[in-house]
């Protein structure tokens, strides 16, 4: 039995549509146009029209940006262009991390029936314009808030902030780079089957080990790919399912921050995401073995490691052995991992927007050459640690 009863708010909603713009390393179109492309595609994918939409949300809110190219598709301008009347809106930067969490709360409580949430990045173009991946916080002249303890000492990128987690994890569990390489290598093989992925050419463990170090032990292929592209997701009331083209169920979701909400102050850098995963599993009868496909966050390789362990797909410290050789996490394996290539090869669409879009496609059987046969349960997770979200999505009807 579930500990929470059957009246979970997330069971009152479905994900009805996903849509994406073109996705690429650099695209010569504005973030605004990419946003509109994705929203119109997602609404059509849901079987709805723009006039059905009564809620809008975007990540990040308020146009807040710490990185060049980070925030696009301003909520006010998008609403004005689409000519939509809203009964609910939200900008999400801090929060529940999963793109559909806030919209699901709004729909489940009757504040809106069909909410569109979007995330648009132009970080690929921004990196090109900066002559390389730019420093975090370089949109401001001084490092404010938590960045004051990171940027001035030279931790100028999320890479430098995540690297000590990787160092500590490898130290505690004896996991090697040769093992971890299989995450980006296997995901690249998946990306080869995804025409929208940014990088699709084969990658080997030798390529990984020979690649340049960015901030040790994180090498080039441990980092997600700055990209240009927009993803939109439509969250609808489950009672409208009959009007929808191909909805997907939300079985359970949670986001728990149980440590210090700070990259450098997080207490135990070898263990991240466990409280979120435990809270999520407490809301469902499904177990890790029931998951058919894992679209788990991979801003860096180590983040996928966190979620493999925290979600219980393997034990603490076992992710290296779990992924080694790639068989378990391949399309035909027991836990196909980031079947679109993930952010490591598919592009840094960020905040689990790309992961959610892929999960929906897999559960509908619409994932083309990379389809996992008979996928009925998908795990989706976002970031980890100081902000974290985890969910199970299911094919519809349940």
């Amino acid at each position, binding site marked *: 039995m579930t500990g929470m009863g059957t009246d979970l708010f997330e069971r009152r909603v479905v994900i009805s549509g996903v849509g994406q713009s073109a996705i690429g390393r650099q695209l010569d179109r504005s973030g605004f146009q990419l946003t509109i492309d994705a929203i119109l595609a997602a609404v059509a994918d849901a079987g709805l029209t723009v006039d059905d939409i009564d809620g809008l949300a975007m990540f990040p809110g308020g146009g807040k940006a710490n990185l060049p190219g980070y925030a696009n598709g301003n909520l006010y301008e998008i609403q004005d262009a689409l000519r939509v009347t809203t009964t609910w809106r939200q900008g999400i930067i801090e929060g529940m991390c999963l793109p559909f969490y806030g919209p699901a709360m709004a729909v489940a409580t009757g504040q809106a029936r069909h909410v569109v949430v979007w995330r648009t990045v132009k970080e690929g173009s921004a990196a090109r314009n900066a002559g390389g991946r730019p420093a975090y916080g370089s949109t401001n002249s001084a490092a404010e808030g938590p960045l004051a*303890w990171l940027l001035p000492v030279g931790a100028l990128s999320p*890479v430098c902030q995540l690297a000590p987690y990787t160092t500590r994890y490898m130290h505690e569990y004896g996991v090697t780079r040769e093992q971890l390489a299989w995450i980006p290598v296997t995901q690249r093989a998946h990306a080869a089957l995804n025409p929208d992925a940014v990088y699709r050419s084969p990658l080997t463990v030798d390529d990984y080990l020979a690649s340049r170090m960015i901030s040790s032990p994180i090498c080039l292929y441990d980092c997600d790919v700055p990209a240009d592209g927009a993803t939109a997701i439509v969250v609808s009331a489950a009672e409208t399912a009959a009007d929808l083209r191909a909805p997907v169920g939300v079985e359970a979701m949670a986001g728990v921050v149980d440590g210090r909400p700070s990259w450098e102050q997080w207490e135990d850098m070898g263990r991240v995401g466990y409280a979120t995963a435990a809270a999520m599993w407490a809301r469902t009868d499904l177990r890790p073995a029931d998951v058919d496909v894992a679209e788990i966050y991979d801003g860096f390789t180590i983040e996928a490691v966190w979620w493999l362990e925290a979600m219980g797909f393997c034990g603490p410290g076992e992710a290296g052995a779990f992924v080694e050789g790639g068989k378990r996490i391949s399309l035909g394996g027991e836990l196909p991992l980031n079947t679109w290539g993930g952010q490591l090869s598919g592009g840094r669409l960020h905040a689990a927007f790309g992961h959610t879009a892929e999960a929906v496609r897999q559960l509908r059987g619409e994932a083309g050459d990379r389809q996992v046969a008979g996928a009925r349960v998908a795990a989706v997770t976002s970031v980890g640690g100081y902000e974290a979200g985890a969910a199970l999505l299911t094919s519809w009807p349940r």
Partner: protein
Amino acid sequence: MTATPTAPVGIPPAVTEETAPFWEAAAAGRLLVERCVRCEAESFPPYGMCRACRGRDVEHVEITGPGHVYSFTVNYQRWMPGLEVPYALVLVEFAGHPGVRVFGRLRGCPPQEARIGMAVEVGFEPGPGGYAVPSFIAVAAESAVPAEGAAGAERAA
């Protein structure tokens, strides 16, 4: 060496009411953290509030070394034009100061010799915008504490 030593490349801190005492002490080479007047717990970074008992009456106390490295990275990427690389960044904790972990540079050894558990002394170096930033100094290898020997690190050196 092409960069001017007196003008390090980087992004300076925005100094606030809460953080001004830290940065002022840093300029004098001293590492300050907040200590609760009521329960004596130490907190970092400074919030003007005790993270243990939520008391608002805090004073500033100096932490002296050595500390030990909880984790680290060696950065090779030139994130900004003119940034000198590589350099090691270390997360340093101090035995007997459970609320305190400080991110900083590492000097006194090649960056590639950074190790978890290594002993470091407190130090600062010129940073961006004229601010002094934490820059820990590697303690000679023969006096370093074992990797898991955090307790008693102050005595070991």
